[in-house]
């Protein structure tokens, strides 16, 4: 590894040839067949995990939305087709998935509001942790509230009236 000086106070590192990733090589020099102990998982705190959850839920909702628009589009094709598909959704499994979706949307929405508060309220960053616990509290309450309406139909099918 050599370094180059650009004459204006800046050094840059010159590497022989392309970097590993540019050359499509493995990201660190792992010789074939030898396992490298990976670094440990970064032990971030609430902020990091809420971000992970926000991202995961966001992506989940996006893919769902995609499918949802497609299936709704069936109303243009024929009512029968639509009703068939919708009927096929009325199984316990899909209900459970729907519950999951509600969970994802609610979390994403509430945490999104928290992020907006962090962004625009001067003291937001200081209270981000408290706000996250508030979000989780509201989320739990709403999820409990949603359990019956979303799941009771499935429960009826599974366990009878």
């Amino acid at each position, binding site marked *: *590894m050599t370094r180059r*000086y650009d*004459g*204006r*106070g800046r*050094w840059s590192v010159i590497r022989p040839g392309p970097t590993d990733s540019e050359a499509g090589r493995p990201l660190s020099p792992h010789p074939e067949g030898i396992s490298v102990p990976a670094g440990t998982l970064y032990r971030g705190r609430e902020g990091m995990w809420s971000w992970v959850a926000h991202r995961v839920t966001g992506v989940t909702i996006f893919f769902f939305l995609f499918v949802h628009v497609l299936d709704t589009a069936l109303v243009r094709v024929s009512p029968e087709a639509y009703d068939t598909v919708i009927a096929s959704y009325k199984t316990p499994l899909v209900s459970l998935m729907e519950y999951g979706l509600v969970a994802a949307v609610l979390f994403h929405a509430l945490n999104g509001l928290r992020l907006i508060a962090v962004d625009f309220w001067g003291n937001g960053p200081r209270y981000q942790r408290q706000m996250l616990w508030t979000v989780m509290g509201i989320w739990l309450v709403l999820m409990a509230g949603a359990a019956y309406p979303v799941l009771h139909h499935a429960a009826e099918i599974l366990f009878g009236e």
Partner: protein
Amino acid sequence: MQIHKYETIIVGAGGAGMRAAIEATKRSRTAVLTKLYPTRSHTGAAQGGMAAALANVEEDNWEWHTFDTIKGGDYLVDQDAAEILAKEAIDSVLDLEKMGLPFNRTPDGTIDQRRFGGHTRNHGEAAVRRSCYASDRTGHMILQTLYQNCVKEGVEFFNEFYVLDLLINEGRTAGVVAYELATGEIHIFQAKAVVFASGGCGKFFKVTSNAHTLTGDGQAVAFRRGLPLEDMEFFQFHPTGIWRMGILLTEGARGEGGILRNKDGERFMERYAPVMKDLASRDVVSRAIYTEIREGRGCGPDGDHVYLDLTHLPPEQLDAKLPDITEFARTYLGIEPYTDPIPIQPTAHYTMGGIPTNVEGEVLSNNTDVVPGLYAAGEVACVSVHGANRLGTNSLLDINVFGRRAGIAAAAYAATHEYVELPESPESEVVRMVEDLRQSTGSERVSEIRTALQETMDVNAMVFRTEATLKQAVADIAELKERYKRVSVQDKGRRYNTDLLEAVELGNLLDLAEVLAVSALARKESRGGHYREDHPNRDDVNFMRHTMAYREEGADGTVSIRLDYKPVVQTRYQPMERKY
């Protein structure tokens, strides 16, 4: 091996080095070699402030400042230099402010000032507010501001390059030899002018506020090249280091009203310095603390420390003025300074001595002659503005005033002189040193020798010294130097071999510790930071002079230290008894 050519080379990127670099870069092709990333330099640890008679908050002038500096240094100060220091202080603070340094402000928006040990109004009448500060991280802000301005000026840095040798050809400076930590490669830097700004050497003490990297490389390199070291026996022990760890709690804590107390809760400084009390100069307070401890009034089960009491100060004031040191107490001691006193003990702090220079920063090769093209500034140098004892806040001033002067002088020299030819195989000395260590199969360990050195220094050459202890120190060091010849390192590699560099640094520490002990042994008086129990009084008749220590190599290869003396420059102030 690579050879580089720069007009001006600056060794060290602490406050002094970067201040010099900012000037030199504007005037010549300059490179800064530093063994640490610039912002890691120990200037960043300075807390209290930087003195300048701005008179922003109360009446003050630079003459009083000059007097305080001279008196603080127990009249061993070269008075012409002290005058320059105090006079240029004002501009150097204002320069820093213009470079962006965020000083604390007075209500009308000027730079705020606070009291500091030894700084007085009208020649000792009462404490004066002279220290310009940025919270309790003044040094941090100076270091950051200077680095920021280096970025602005496009100063060229060679980071993590260890300068291990100085090249002098026929008495003139030819360049330096450096070791690149990342690769283990040796680099020759040919230069017209070289500025040493490599900081202090406190690491030969165990309890010290100095960084692990303050190993006196600059002094040792110069010394090995036959240049003298001035006044090395004067080492400052700061009264308030965190007990056993040595981490500094700034004098600003006492400036804000903190009080030292012994185990009976007594404000004992009232007995030792009735006027200045806790703000007497550092040597006085350090000795007072050790006297309390020795006389059985120390705190704790072992009675080996005293307390710094901040509990009577309002928490808001602590938060605003001393946030960092209160955090140190919390982090390292688990103590809440709002409610509990902090255990402290004197800690080795500052090297008053160093490479002798004149007021332009030119290095002296004896009492009168300069080495053409060689400069030094900062803690590594001894201009002698600090004499026998440095006043708090005068060092941040020193690095700015004399760093600037050295940078300008070096660049001016470079502009008017040609390169001196490199000596024959310039790298040989360093290669030999490094390879000897790398290949040594001896059984001694660096850490063991270093610990032994630190222990003997702490016991024998600290606040109180006697003939016997110093002789013990000299003997111990000689033995350790013998052991050092058999030292070996475990890391034989090239890349980031810090094991090897620690061994090199230990060699430097051993050399400098020896100079300290030998110089101290010969100074049979007590003055400032140097206190001989067997000679408790100042002796102006015999010792109003600077020690100059030279390394002598006999024909048979034996190495010894020769002491010589240099007169003190006195202009206006006649020595008086020093009382606070």
